[in-house]
């Protein structure tokens, strides 16, 4: 990470108004970068490019741009920071009148026919940046149109995935958004296997790698150090989940076959009256012997004022795995919180492994969650079972 190095090298130059330093962050969740910069006490302007509109293959990259907007140095190594004043900041460059991309006319763009994937992507990009609140549906439609017009368009698939995940993280969420995002990212990697940024996006939510690079392990330390300075850590819209941390180590929990608590299916089913559930598999297709990560999310139905009853057994997931399949823990338990009742979204992640001799084709894995839930409309507390079906394929 070269941010602290560049910050240190340019602090004084910025104070004297000789240079500006701008960060452009490539995270799906740019608020995490803001927390990172707060932690490192870096006050650069930060622009967010979660959809990789800049079309870069990988990060980080440091570029020196002169007064006219012309690139004078690219791919600056960290070692260049020490001498940047002499090599760039104090240099005189010819002034040029370089063109600037104007603000897009969204109305005109919306009316214009979109005949190619590039047309549709251009509209998706414009609306994603300039559309304001509620833009995400239009961006999704535009990127979807792009991949309909050209199914081989990796950029369209990647950005569609990012826009879907963005919607999943806001109030306009649709329960299938995350799963569809994963499918789009996986397709983008298939089409453009050398794109590091594409590859990492899917891996961020996927099964633990054999030698995982830490993604967001720095967050607890950052928060603690920011607090110790007497500041409030910037809040995150989405807390990183298990797949985004480096610990526990791969296969720290032995893989074993699941057990069941209601094999005869006698428990009453919740069809969403109390709890809405989403499951997402990452990736959607694995080879025999490989693992996939399942994200299971449970949201109390706020219209019925449903809430968790925390004085009894916690939410538990039971899987009925096909022959030869295994899971990294069984059963999967989401602990209760300290309050007697609560309404928070609960989620769990677990890994399932296909047997080494699995045949290619679609697989459906059944299971269910059991939980105690109460609601205010009828004033009842119940114990319910919510059926789960995980669909994926073996390549």
């Amino acid at each position, binding site marked *: 990470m070269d941010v602290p190095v560049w910050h240190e090298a340019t602090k004084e130059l910025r104070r004297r108004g000789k240079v500006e330093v701008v960060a452009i962050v490539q995270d799906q969740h740019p608020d995490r970068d803001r927390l990172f910069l707060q932690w490192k006490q870096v006050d650069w302007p930060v*622009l967010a490019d979660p959809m990789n509109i*800049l079309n870069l293959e990988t990060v980080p990259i440091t570029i020196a741009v002169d007064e006219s907007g012309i690139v004078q140095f690219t791919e600056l190594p960290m070692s260049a920071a020490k001498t940047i004043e002499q090599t760039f900041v104090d240099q005189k460059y010819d002034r040029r009148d370089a063109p600037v*991309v104007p603000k897009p006319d969204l109305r005109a763009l919306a009316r214009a026919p979109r005949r190619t994937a590039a047309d549709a992507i251009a509209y998706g990009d414009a609306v994603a940046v300039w559309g304001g609140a509620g833009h995400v549906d239009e961006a999704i439609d535009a990127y979807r149109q792009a991949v309909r017009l050209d199914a081989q368009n990796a950029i369209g698939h990647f950005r569609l995935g990012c826009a879907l995940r963005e919607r999943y993280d806001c109030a306009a969420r649709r329960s299938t958004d995350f799963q569809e995002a994963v499918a789009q990212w996986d397709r983008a990697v298939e089409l453009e296997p*050398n794109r590091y940024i594409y590859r990492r996006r899917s891996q961020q939510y996927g099964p633990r790698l054999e030698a995982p690079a830490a993604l967001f392990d720095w967050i607890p330390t950052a928060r603690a150090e920011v607090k110790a300075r007497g500041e409030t850590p910037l809040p995150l819209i989405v807390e990183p989940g298990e797949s985004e941390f480096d610990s526990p180590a791969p296969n720290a929990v032995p893989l074993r076959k699941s057990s069941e608590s209601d094999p005869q299916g006698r428990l009453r089913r919740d069809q969403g009256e109390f709890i809405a559930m989403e499951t997402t598999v990452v990736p959607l297709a694995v080879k025999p012997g490989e693992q996939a990560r399942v994200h299971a999310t449970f949201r109390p139905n706020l219209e019925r004022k449903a809430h968790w009853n925390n004085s009894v057994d916690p939410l538990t997931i039971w899987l009925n795995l096909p022959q030869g399949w295994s899971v990294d823990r069984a059963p999967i338990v989401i602990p209760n919180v300290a309050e007697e009742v609560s309404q928070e979204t609960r989620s769990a992640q677990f890994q399932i492994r296909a047997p080494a001799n699995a045949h290619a084709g679609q697989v459906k894995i059944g299971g269910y969650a059991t939980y105690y839930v109460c609601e205010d409309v009828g004033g009842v507390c119940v114990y319910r079972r919510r059926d789960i079906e995980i669909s994926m394929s073996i390549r």
Partner: protein
Amino acid sequence: MKALLLVTAGLLVLPLTAQKKNIWDRNAPLPYGFNVGDVFPTRALPSAVDGKPTSIASFRGKKVIVNVFASW
């Protein structure tokens, strides 16, 4: 003499080639806007602070170091 010329030419060319060789052996060149002499992309991106679209062109008249990164 011919051989000597070839060797000399090789010596002259070699350091330049080595300099140009990218450390991660990129498969694709950098997109337009990131190479020396290009106009750095001026299309706006949302500010990570308030979502307001902001272009690097708003810094025209100043030298700018752009650090593109991710916190992972």
